[in-house]
C-alpha cells in the first residue's frame, strides 16, 4: 500500500494542473479532496455537477427560494412537478410528498398535484392531478405556466391545453403554499430563472417555494463542503492566488478533453451510486483512481481500492429527507479497506514530505 501511495504522490507532485473529479464520496472524502486540490493547485469537480453548477450560478445571480423536503411533504397544498427528472430520480417521490398524515398546514385547499411537461409516470391515488403536456417543449410550458400565474395573456393553438394552464395558474395564485419540484439537471438556466420568478411573484401574496432534487453521488454534500472550505462550489480551481469558480472552464470533462489537465484523481466510492468517468479519463492522462468497485484504468495508472461510504464505513452525506448533511451508519462495516479521506490525507502527507526533502 505504501509504495502505491508513494507512486500516487509522485504522479501528482509532477502535475501542472491536476483535476480531482468524480468525488462520489462522503463529506470527509470531499474535505480531504479539497485539501489536496489546494495543496496541488488543482481543480475540483463532481461527476454530477451539471445541474448543481447551473443552480449555483442562478443562486449567485439572483438568489433562491428553497423549501425543505419536510415542509413540502407536510404543508404544500399544491405540488408542481416539472419534467420527468424528479420521478426518474426518485420513483417513490410523490408517495413521500403526499403522505397519509401531515402536520398542520396553511389554508383549506385539498392537496393537489400539477405535472408539467410529461404524461408519463403514475400519480398518487386520491390526489387530484392536472397534467400540463402537449407539443411544446418543457421550457415553453414552464414559461406559459408562469404567464398564467402573472395573468399575462398568451396564445397557443391547443385550446384545451391553454385552458388547463390558465386553470393551473389560478390554482397557484389561490394556493396557500405552492411548491415547484424539479431536477436541476433537466432544466437550463433560463428555465430555472422562470421558475424562481414565478415563485417570487407568488410570495408577494401567498407562500411558495422550490424543491430541487439533490444531485446523485452526494453532490450536494460535496458542494456544501467545498463552499464552507473555500467560499465556492465545485468546478473551482486553486491554481491561482485565490480560488476561482467557473462552471464552464473548470468542468473536468472539458479540462481533460482540452488537454489543460495533465493528471486526474478519480474518486468513485459511494454505496449505491456509480460515477460516470469523463470521456477522456484513463486514456493517456496519468491518473490516480480511488474506487470501491472494479475499474478499467490505464496501465500506468495508480489504482487504490477504498471502502464504499455508507456500506463499508459510516458516512456523512446529504440526505434529502432532512434537506441537509446527516450521518448514516455503515451497513456492514469493513474496516479492512481505507476510506477516501484516509488515502487522500496520506497522499497529501507524502507530497508534503517530498516538498520538504
Amino acid at each position: 500500500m505504501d509504495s502505491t501511495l508513494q507512486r500516487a504522490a509522485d504522479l501528482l507532485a509532477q502535475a501542472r494542473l491536476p483535476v480531482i473529479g468524480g468525488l462520489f464520496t462522503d463529506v470527509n472524502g470531499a474535505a480531504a479532496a479539497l485539501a489536496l486540490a489546494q495543496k496541488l493547485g488543482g481543480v475540483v469537480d463532481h461527476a454530477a455537477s451539471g445541474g448543481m453548477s447551473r443552480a449555483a450560478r442562478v443562486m449567485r445571480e439572483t438568489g433562491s427560494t428553497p423549501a425543505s423536503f419536510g415542509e413540502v411533504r407536510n404543508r404544500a397544498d399544491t405540488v408542481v412537478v416539472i419534467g420527468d427528472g424528479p420521478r426518474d430520480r426518485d420513483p417513490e417521490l410523490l408517495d413521500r410528498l403526499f403522505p397519509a398524515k401531515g402536520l398542520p398546514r396553511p389554508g383549506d385547499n385539498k392537496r393537489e398535484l400539477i405535472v408539467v411537461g410529461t404524461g408519463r409516470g403514475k400519480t398518487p391515488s386520491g390526489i387530484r392531478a392536472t397534467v400540463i403536456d402537449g407539443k411544446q417543449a418543457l421550457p415553453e410550458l414552464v414559461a406559459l405556466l408562469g404567464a398564467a400565474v402573472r395573468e399575462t395573456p398568451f396564445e397557443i393553438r391547443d385550446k384545451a391545453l391553454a385552458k388547463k394552464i390558465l386553470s393551473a395558474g389560478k390554482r397557484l395564485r389561490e394556493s396557500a403554499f405552492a411548491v415547484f419540484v424539479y431536477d436541476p439537471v433537466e432544466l437550463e438556466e433560463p428555465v430555472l430563472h422562470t421558475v424562481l420568478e414565478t415563485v417570487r411573484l407568488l410570495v408577494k401574496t401567498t407562500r411558495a417555494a422550490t424543491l430541487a432534487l439533490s444531485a446523485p453521488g452526494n453532490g450536494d454534500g460535496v458542494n456544501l463542503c467545498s463552499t464552507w472550505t473555500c467560499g465556492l462550489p465545485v468546478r473551482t480551481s486553486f491554481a491561482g492566488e485565490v480560488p476561482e469558480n467557473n462552471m464552464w472552464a473548470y468542468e473536468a470533462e472539458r479540462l481533460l478533453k482540452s488537454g489543460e489537465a495533465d493528471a486526474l484523481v478519480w474518486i468513485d466510492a459511494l454505496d449505491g451510486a456509480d460515477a460516470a468517468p469523463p470521456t477522456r479519463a484513463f486514456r493517456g492522462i496519468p491518473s490516480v483512481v480511488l474506487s470501491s468497485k472494479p475499474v478499467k484504468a490505464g496501465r500506468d495508472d495508480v489504482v487504490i481500492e477504498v471502502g464504499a461510504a455508507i456500506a463499508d464505513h459510516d458516512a456523512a452525506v446529504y440526505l434529502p429527507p432532512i434537506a441537509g448533511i446527516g450521518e448514516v451508519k455503515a451497513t456492514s462495516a469493513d474496516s479492512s479497506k481505507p476510506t477516501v479521506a484516509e488515502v487522500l490525507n496520506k497522499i497529501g502527507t507524502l507530497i508534503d514530505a517530498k516538498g520538504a526533502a
Partner: protein
Amino acid sequence: MLIQLKGGRVIDPANNRDSVGDVYLENGRIVDAPDGREPDEVHDVSGKIVMAGAIDVHSHIAGTNVTLGRQLMPELPLIASAEGQPILPSPAAWGAYATGIRYAEMGYTTVIEPAMIPTHAIQSHKEMASIPIIDVAGLVILGNDDYTLNLLRTSNVKSDELKDYVAWTLSHSKALGLKVINAGGSEAFKFNARTFDLDEQVPEYGVTSRGIVEAMQQAIADLGVPHPPHVHTNNLGIAGNVDTAVATLEATQGNPIHLAHIQFYGYGKEGDKGFSSGAPRLMEAINKHKNATVDVGQVMFGQTITISGDVLRQFDGRRAANPKKWIINQADGNGTGVVPYNYKKKSFVNALQWAIGLEIFLLAEDPWRVLFSTDHPNGALFTRYPEIFHLLMDKDERSRWLDQLPEASRQVSGLAGISRELTFSELAVMTRAAPAKVLGLMDRGHLASGAVADVAVYTDQKNKTKMFAAADLVFKSGKLVVRKGNVVDVSWGRCYHVEAGFDSHIEKRVRSFYETYYGADPSWFGVTETVSDRPDRFATIRCAS
C-alpha cells in the same frame, strides 16, 4: 514548559487586576508565580497590555445558514475589501479556515456559533471542526419546531416532556445552549403571517411567543444549563420595537435570559421620520432587569450580508437587499433568510442604527451584562471589531465619525452627548470575562491560576483600531499561535457542549415523530465524537442539576 509573560499591564477584571506584573503559563493553563523555578521561555511584554483571550458570544461562523450565505454571495469579501474593509479579497476569506486565522490574529480564542439547526447539527460541527485555533460551541435552535409547539399546544403536557425534549436536543446536537429565534414567528410565517408580536398566537397551535420563551426558560432552568436561553425576540429591525424588547424583559419575571443583538431592538418612533433612538429607554430596562444579559449587535458602515433564522423578518427585509438578490429558505423549524445589505453612512436609518449600538454600550451601567457583538455578519463582519473598540474607547474618534453622519440622524441620537470612554477593564469585561460567565465557560475569560492559558498581548497605543487588529502575541491553551499579528502555528481547538439528562422515553417519541412526519431517522442528525477526526475534540460542561 513554563512560560513567563513578563512585565506587562495585566488587565483581568474578573480578578480585579489592572496592574503591571507577570503571567505564567504551564501545561496549557495559567499558573501562579512558581517559587524558585526559572521559566523555560520568557516573553518581555513590558509596555504591553495582557488580557485573557477574547470570547465572542454571538457570531455566525458555521452551519447551513452561513454556507447558504456563502453560496449566495461568494463575492462578499471582494466587495468588502474594495470598500476598504479589513478582509482579504478572496472568496476563501469567508471560509472556515480563514475565520479561525483572522479571529486568532485579533486575540480571540473562543467563538460561539449561535444558530445551529437541530437536524443539521452535523454540518455545523463539520464546519466548526474545519476552523483552526479557536475553541467553539454551538447554540441549538428550538421554538419554531412542530414538536415543541405541539407539546405547548396541549398545555396539559406531561410535566417533564418539554424539559426532556430540550435536554435530548442539546445532547443530540452537542450544543452548549439553547437559541430561540422569533419564537413562533417562523411557524406563523408558514401560515402566511407577515408580522408576529409577543402575544400573538401561533396558528393551529394557539401558543404565544411569550409562552414559548417562558417555557424554554423554565426548561433550561430546570435542567441547570449554565447558559440561559439565548433569545432573538420578535419585531427585529422595526421602528418602535423598543416596546417589544422592554415587554420581553418584563415577561422574564426574573428568570435568566440572554437577549441577542439588542441594537436591532433599540428603535423608537419619534421624530419627523418616525424612527429614533430607543437606546436610553432600552438601557434603562436592561440596567433594571439584572436577570438579563444582552449582546449588542453593533452596526458598521459597508457591505455585509444578513443571515437569520428569523425568516419572517428576513422576508420583509428582502426588499432592501443590496445587491438585489436574496434567499428565503422555508425549512423545518425556523428556516432562514439570507439578505445582502450595505449599511450606508449617508442613510438616516443606518447612521442611527450605528449610533444606537454605541449608545447601548456607553449607557451600560454594568458591562458584565452588556456583551460585545456585531451579530457577525449581520451588523458588521467580525473583522471590524477593532474599529468598534476604538469608537468605544475614544470619544474624539466618535466625534470624527459622527461629523460625517446626516444631521437628521445626529438629532435623534444622544450619542454626541455621551463622553464616556470605555476603559481596558470594561472592554475586557465585555469581550472576555462576561461572555465566559454567561456561557458557563468558567475556565476562561480571566487569568487566575487554573484558567485555560488563552492569552492575548497587545501594544498599547492611541490608535485602538491598530492595537486590536493585530495582537503581538496570542497563546491558545498555552501554545504560541500568533506573533506580531500573524499566525505562526495552526493548532486546533475544542468544541464545548452540555450533557443534560433526560428520560430515555423521549427518544422513542422523537423517533416516532420524525419517522411519521419527515420520513427521517433522528440518528442521522445525532452528533458523535467521530464528527471530527481529532479524538479530544469535545469537552463537556456540566449542568447544575
